[in-house]
């Protein structure tokens, strides 16, 4: 029960965080200069956006839940279960970020989910 609860938090908070961070970075716009100064500038600008903090908070919740989970469960159980995040991320990206996911990308995402699960179960 404790494991299921933490798995749910890892997948849902992680996916929510990724969606919020992507939304924030799309507000910044395409980064085209990669000097250290430009990158620091982009990071500074990103962390002035509420969506970035919201995403960062959710990701921190997912991260610490994963740390706790890894302290009592094996990686070979945890990672296959969290492979669901790839599917959840694609569904979220479609509905919340308006990404156009064609059948080829759906097929790729599902293969990756199955592949990650097999690698860690195998």
């Amino acid at each position, binding site marked *: 029960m404790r494991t299921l609860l933490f798995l749910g938090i890892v997948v849902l908070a992680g996916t929510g965080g990724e969606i919020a961070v992507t939304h924030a970075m799309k507000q910044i*716009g*395409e980064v085209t*200069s990669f000097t250290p100064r430009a990158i620091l500038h982009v990071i500074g600008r990103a962390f002035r956006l509420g969506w970035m903090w919201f995403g960062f908070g959710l990701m921190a919740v997912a991260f610490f839940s994963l740390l706790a989970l890894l*302290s009592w469960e094996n990686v070979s159980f945890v990672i296959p279960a969290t492979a669901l995040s*790839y599917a959840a991320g*694609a569904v979220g990206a479609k509905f919340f970020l308006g990404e156009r996911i064609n059948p080829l990308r759906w097929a*790729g995402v599902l*293969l990756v989910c199955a*592949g990650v699960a097999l690698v860690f179960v*195998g």
Partner: protein
Amino acid sequence: MSATATSRTEPAALRIKTFVFIVLMIALGSAGDVLLSAGMKQVGEVDHGSLGALADAFWRTFTSGTVWLGIASLILFFVCYMLVLSWADLSFVLPASATSYAIVPLLGYALLGEFVSPMRWAGVALICLGVALVGLTPPSTTGARTPLPQTGGDD
């Protein structure tokens, strides 16, 4: 540099730029995961029984050098992740970054001669095929946004 429907960078350049950042993410993310996993195993199982035990686990976690190295790798991973998401789709970046799960068993087999079970090989093959399929799709599908002026490194 001409504008396109989805980005202000040429599609070929955008693909290369996306590829480079995903490779960086895979390298930094894998290093971070391995270091954190090793660090947390040194810390031992987190006891949720009392506040004191939780504080003790917290203290042991944040005084571990291995955990800090892992955290540093993951911070750099996160910076690459933020940058790539400024132009690429989440549904492109997320599955492509799963390549790390295929690379670890491949490296273990090739460099260390580790045994890789048939099921694990099947998983590696599925991940590679999945990432290849995602890689055939355009990295960005959400339409152009006018980037804010980036004065940080250009001036």
